[in-house]
């Protein structure tokens, strides 16, 4: 039986096992919306802005490992989605984004709501497709899901002209989506893996640096086994938090610009570094000339282009993190040898000295103003470290990364690569839909939250009981911090005047709101919010305006050149 393109679209989503479609209707996708109306298998989540759709799909994808799926209309629908697509691209999140397009015969005529979506998205997608014939639609959709979810994952855009969704053809779900030009490597080279094992066995000061690739590759348990076998310290990147349990004694915290003293110093002094699923980003490495000066480096990554991109490494294993680490552990075990125990003991002694600096100390005893760190520590304690935490971008993001100890992967959802303010709330929508029984906390600030605040309406429509932890310091905190440090406290346009009353704002959307401005009320307010299982609670914490994120490595400095706090500089 012949189906229309719109009907085929919906059938394909169903056959791909798509649960939720995040979208916003418009002229070019009306045939598709009509087909969605006539079925119940694929649930459509109506957002309030297309950026929200992509972030929500992204949160769904990061928290489940399944691809997030988006449908937007042509023109502004597509351009509004671009920020979310670029966010997913930078963090290698599998998304499939369908953009409507004007009728085929109008393309290139500057038709109403026409934009070159393929051209605009090209630099921030893993791949994109334009559908030119309804007979290709099913295969292109199949390929889009295949490309988005395999290898190093990433967003794929499919642009569908409106007439294609009305044309008819037979529907068969294509079985084999393989492309001759796309064959991601999975197994690492056994000879190289043996060399990596040999090098690790010679280490006197080993260090494991694990990134988001471990989470994307579902390789947390392999990483944990490997780290424990080696008895080596492990650090996670911002994207990798939860890949190795934060409460494990072998964990030394996050590394990089706002990483812990012990993690960065261990990077600086290690003699063998094993990097897994991490890409030596500038926020992690600092000054490349001072990066790991004593280390021989092993790099495991599924993307050959990540290898030797920023840092020259001695041994590179291209492959799936899970398979490669499994093989690496097998090679280590088969060697019948262990690491030099006295050397390892001395190494840990050194690390414990660094830990003794207590680099995450802050003024806990303050009873006058709320310290943002205190809110996050309390959130961690009350949720027993088991909540899903989404975040926006800025100081609150760093504090959440430092003070919420993630023991499991896919619990920490933030925009690491692109640093997209406005990400947190819509991402929480996707996470809460995927995990209806779990606590989802959106850690945000009064600047970030306003970039996608309209999604409070979506939360109401779908009864999503997200807990918004707004650390309200009346500043774009991270901008203010840099202006204080590097621009002699000239706070150029970083002070937010005319802030809304967030409590009333939340209430006007039909949610509960609560303002907290005293430290002794923090715990009670969080308990109250977490106890409300069936509604969104917006907690507006009025926090210390001048608190800075420490430790800090200034841009362009080395790992050993950290600042612990204004009054106790180490460097």
């Amino acid at each position: 039986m012949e189906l229309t393109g719109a009907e085929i679209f919906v059938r394909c989503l169903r056959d791909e096992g798509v649960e939720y479609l995040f979208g916003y209707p418009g002229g070019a996708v009306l045939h598709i919306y009509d087909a969605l109306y006539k079925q119940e298998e694929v649930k459509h989540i109506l957002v309030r802005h297309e950026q929200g759709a992509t972030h929500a799909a992204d949160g769904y994808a990061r928290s489940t490992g399944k691809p997030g799926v988006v449908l937007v209309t042509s023109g502004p629908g597509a351009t509004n989605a671009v920020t979310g697509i670029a966010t997913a691209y930078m963090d290698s999140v599998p998304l499939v984004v369908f953009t409507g397009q004007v009728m085929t015969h109008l393309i290139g005529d500057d038709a109403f709501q026409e934009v070159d979506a393929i051209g605009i998205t090209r630099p921030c997608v893993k791949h994109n497709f334009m559908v030119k014939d309804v007979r290709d639609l099913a295969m292109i959709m199949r390929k889009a899901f295949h490309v988005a979810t395999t290898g190093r994952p990433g967003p794929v855009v499919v642009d569908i002209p409106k007439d294609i969704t009305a044309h008819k053809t037979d529907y068969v779900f294509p079985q084999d989506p393989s492309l001759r030009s796309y064959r991601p490597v999975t197994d690492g080279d056994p000879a190289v893996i043996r060399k990596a094992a040999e090098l690790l066995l010679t280490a006197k000061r080993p260090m494991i640096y694990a990134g988001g690739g471990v989470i994307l590759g579902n390789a947390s348990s392999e990483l944990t086994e490997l780290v424990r076998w080696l008895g080596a310290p492990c650090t996670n990147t911002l994207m990798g938090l939860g890949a190795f349990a934060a409460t494990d004694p072998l964990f030394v915290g996050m590394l990089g610009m706002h990483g812990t003293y012990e993690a960065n110093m261990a990077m600086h002094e290690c003699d063998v570094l094993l990097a897994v699923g991490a890409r030596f980003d500038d926020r992690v490495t600092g000054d490349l000339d001072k990066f790991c000066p004593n280390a021989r480096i092993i790099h495991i990554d599924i993307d050959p282009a990540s290898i030797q991109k920023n840092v020259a490494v001695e041994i590179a294993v291209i492959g799936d993190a899970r398979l490669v680490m499994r093989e690496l552990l097998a090679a280590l075990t088969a060697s019948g040898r262990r690491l030099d125990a006295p050397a390892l003991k001395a190494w840990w002694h050194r690390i414990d000295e660094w830990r003794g600096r207590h680099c995450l100390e802050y003024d806990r005893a303050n009873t006058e103003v709320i310290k943002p760190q205190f809110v996050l520590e309390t959130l961690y304690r009350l949720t027993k470290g088991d909540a899903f935490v989404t975040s926006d971008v800025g100081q609150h993001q760093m504090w959440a990364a430092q003070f919420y100890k993630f023991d499991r992967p896919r619990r920490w959802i933030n925009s690491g690569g692109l640093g997209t303010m406005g990400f947190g709330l819509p991402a929480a929508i996707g996470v809460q839909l995927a995990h209806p029984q779990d606590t989802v906390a959106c850690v945000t600030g009064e600047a970030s939250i306003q970039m996608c605040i309209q999604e409070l309406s979506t939360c109401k429509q779908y009864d999503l009981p997200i807990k918004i932890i707004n650390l309200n310091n009346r500043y774009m905190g991270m901008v203010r911090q840099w202006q204080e440090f590097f621009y002699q406290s000239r706070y150029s346009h970083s002070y937010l005047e005319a802030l809304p009353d967030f409590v009333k704002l939340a209430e006007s959307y039909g949610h509960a709101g609560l303002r907290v401005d005293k430290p002794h009320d923090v715990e009670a307010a969080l308990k109250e919010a977490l106890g409300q299982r069936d509604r969104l609670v917006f907690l507006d914490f009025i926090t210390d305006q001048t608190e800075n994120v420490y430790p800090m490595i200034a841009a362009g400095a080395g790992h050993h050149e950290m600042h612990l706090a204004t009054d106790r500089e180490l460097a």
Partner: protein
Amino acid sequence: MRHIISILLENEAGALSRVAGLFSARGYNIASLTVAPTEDPSLSRMTLVTSGSEDVVDQIRKQLNKLVDVVKLVDLTENKRIEREMLLIKVCAEGGERDEIKRLSDIFRGRIIDVTERAYTIELTGDGSKLDAFISVIHPRRILEVVRSGVIGIARGNASCVPDDRSSCLNSNDPAA
């Protein structure tokens, strides 16, 4: 260092812009770029000349290979190769100059392919340095227009840049092939 990279691309709309966009987005150099269809209508051949340190060229190769439309990539610089470029040049040729231009063209194995009372159009093929040499012997004031094709190249010997699954007489046991 200069590298000449041969790429088989899916013959899809937009494939060329993916390559060109990659170079501009990541700040890589393109000295020349030629594209044309191949004997297999689903594939285009692109020959790209770029330059950079070994690290940069290594990244260029990897980033190109990451493009989903790239079916096969070979850096011809790594082995012996043949390079060719075509030059079409229109030069002033009047009076006594006509014989001299004709002689120069013959020396470089060029062909005069169009003639007017005042000008010759000459076709010349060779590697880039040969074309440069020819241009340099013509007085700049005589040069009316220079059109160069950009470099194409092919590996010497039996090595080839073709899709991995393609069979040929070299990898077949069939003696008749």
